[in-house]
């Protein structure tokens, strides 16, 4: 058993923290939060130079062949610094399906360009039911002379507003089961009939509505095998769920650090408020939540990285981390008092993301449903 990071991972962690502190100060985070795109091509280019977008992809596709655990370490730091922009959607939601199921040609076409920062992708999965189940996918892709015609509405497609390509999960037949007739299609976001509308969210996480109105793509754009998309989607979702946990662990750690620093410095009644047991005990509970999240998340990430069955561990990690991150930010706000209730202080940036992170890829109740199945219930 080894519950620590490797030397290389520690180095990755340190260099990521240094890079983000320098290149993505909170001022830039706020600026991007308020911008239309929520994306800085300049920062993106620098991140590409760090090799981050290609971290988990094989070297032959322009990546560096890192492990999923390496990616979790990086995401942890991105969460710590609340990196805005399309990293998560491009690499995890867009890149992973291509790496998992793409043809040699597709991998050669997309992954090197994703790695060098020239192409952005995202996954168009959820629809107005907002559920992560196969039955919720109603968008249809109808075959016609070697082409597919796509019609339907996708909702909560992250960073679609800046994406070059959308990986669309569409219904391509009338199978007996909801899972059995779904297909992945790579769609140029600039295709006629694609209409992308960013949604206003409190987390400023650039969730979009994407309408496909008679969008025509070649059958060559099918990713993986027709009608067999669902297992791939499930695998991507499972990985994305751990990845999101890693981000949230970093965020929760930052909130703890920020709060403890404040409690050390803020003087009331002639002493630092951090010397009062009421505050100390809140901080102790925050620390416990952060550690618990960290271990559940890294265990799930490690299993994922090793290719071991991880469904129950991932669900446990998300069930715990989603709620723990919220608890941590709520206590952080309580300890900060009025200053935390302003736009000036950074705390709200984390709180907003905690709220959004809690629901994405299934909230704690949803995850506990998966855990319960694992318990044989």
């Amino acid at each position, binding site marked *: *058993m*080894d*519950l*620590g*990071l*490797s030397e290389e991972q520690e180095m990755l962690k340190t260099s990521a923290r240094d890079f983000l502190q320098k290149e993505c100060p909170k001022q830039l985070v706020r600026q991007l939060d308020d911008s239309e795109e929520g994306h800085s091509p300049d920062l993106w280019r620098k991140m590409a130079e760090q090799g981050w977008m290609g971290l988990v992809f094989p070297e032959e596709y322009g990546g560096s062949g890192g492990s999923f*655990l390496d990616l979790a370490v990086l995401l942890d730091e991105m969460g710590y610094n609340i990196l805005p922009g399309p990293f998560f959607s491009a690499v995890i939601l867009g890149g992973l399906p291509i790496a998992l199921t793409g043809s040699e040609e597709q991998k050669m076409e997309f992954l090197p360009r994703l790695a060098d920062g020239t192409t952005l992708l995202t996954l168009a999965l959820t629809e107005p039911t907002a559920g992560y189940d196969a039955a919720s996918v109603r968008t249809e892709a109808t075959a016609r002379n070697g082409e597919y015609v796509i019609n339907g509405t996708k909702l909560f497609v992250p960073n679609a507003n800046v994406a070059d390509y959308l990986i669309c999960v569409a219904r391509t037949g009338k199978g007996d089961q909801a899972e059995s007739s779904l297909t992945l299609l790579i769609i140029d976001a600039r295709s006629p009939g694609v209409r992308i509308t960013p949604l206003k969210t409190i987390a400023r996480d650039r969730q979009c509505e994407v309408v496909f109105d008679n969008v025509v793509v070649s059958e060559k754009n099918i990713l993986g095998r027709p009608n067999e998309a669902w297992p791939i989607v499930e695998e991507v979702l499972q990985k994305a769920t751990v990845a999101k946990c890693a981000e949230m662990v970093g965020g929760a750690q930052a909130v*703890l650090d920020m709060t*403890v620093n404040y*409690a*050390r410095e803020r003087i009331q009644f002639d*002493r*630092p408020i*951090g*010397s009062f*047991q009421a*505050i*100390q*005990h809140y*901080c*102790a*509970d925050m*620390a*416990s939540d952060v*550690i*618990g999240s960290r*271990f*559940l998340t*890294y*265990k799930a990430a*490690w*299993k994922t990285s090793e290719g071991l069955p991880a469904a129950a561990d991932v669900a*446990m990690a998300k*069930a*715990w981390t989603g709620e723990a991150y919220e608890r941590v930010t709520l206590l952080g706000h309580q300890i900060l008092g009025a200053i935390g209730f302003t736009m000036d202080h950074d705390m709200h940036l984390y709180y907003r993301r905690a709220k959004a992170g809690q629901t994405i890829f299934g909230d704690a*109740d949803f995850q*506990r*449903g998966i*855990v*319960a199945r*694992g*318990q*044989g*219930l």
Partner: protein
Amino acid sequence: MDFRFSEGEEAFRQQVRQWLKQEIPQRWVELDPGIWEETEESWAIARQFHRKLGEKGWLAPAYPKEYGGLELSHMKRLILAEELAYNRAPVGVEVEITVNWVTPAILLFGTERQKKEYATRIARGDTIFCIGYSEPDAGSDLASVKTRAVEDGDDYVINGQKIWCSYAHLADYCWLAVRTDPDAPKHKGISVFIVDMKTPGITVRPLINILNHHSFNEVFFDDVRVPKENLVGQKNNGWYQVAIALDFERSSIGWAATNQRIIEELADYARETTRNGQPLAKDPLVRNQLAQLAVENEVARMMAYRIAWMYSKGLHPGYESSMSMVFVSELSRRTASIGMRILGHYGELDRGSKWAVLNARLARMSLSALSIGVGGGSNEIQRNIIAVRGLGLPRK
């Protein structure tokens, strides 16, 4: 990172399991005493079992070989503790106190004679200690002890009162903290003694615990003469020695494993029980609650693993142990609470009731779990430790 146990460790786990399957006496299983529920009969079985464990070297596996230990690795000890608790072996708080609190301090501060005499016998399962720390006016504020020890010839003469002494009526020795210098600042006038419980002048008076069992005692010392050679470590250095002893490996893994077992039993119960025309296991609220307990217990287990892992790396966890204890103690209470609600009206049935389910373990646990998070440093003290030592928050 690697969350797996090694092959050798997994084999050791199987070995322990197999052994426990053979060696846990059937009568113990029938009695099924929970924590703080010892009877004369169960105590006798437990003492016998301690000796069997001692023969294997598994009672005090951490000790140096010269004092009867195995110098077993931290990870194997973790596994052993986990299996003992999960399989409800006849090993209770008396072993935790004797093996994990008292003896490490003897090994650290004791004379060669003390190490040989006590550690070796403890490792064999022949000797049980009780602890004499708390007094009516010294609980969490342990440095306030008033019980006095005064030098007189070759002895110290002890007068005063201790309280909450678990198993003092059954233990062979008391690990006693007393004041040896009343004029020094309160942390600097305390010493630690090993006191034979058969010494004249000791009166043990039972305190009946919330489970209606006799586990705690008041212990009165009335001109009790203790030879000077029973002083452990330096005179007036006792506070420091006690603090170190309280800091020794507090294995919270036992609580997590106990909890794991009960959560699994609740899941079985939910599968087998029909309510409102369907298995309880189909009720979304029951599923949600049992799943949450499983998640929380995974947190508790990882916190305990973390401590063993830190030791194995040569690190010395401090606040990490506090965090682990706070979490698992509160989780035990939640488990009992949720468990009783899942059992519905049956939840309140006590042991011996005709209709009791799961041997009334949940109802008993709802009472016994009140003690975890109080004994050995309350959760408030533990949270202070996390905040001050772990997070660097100021004391003043």
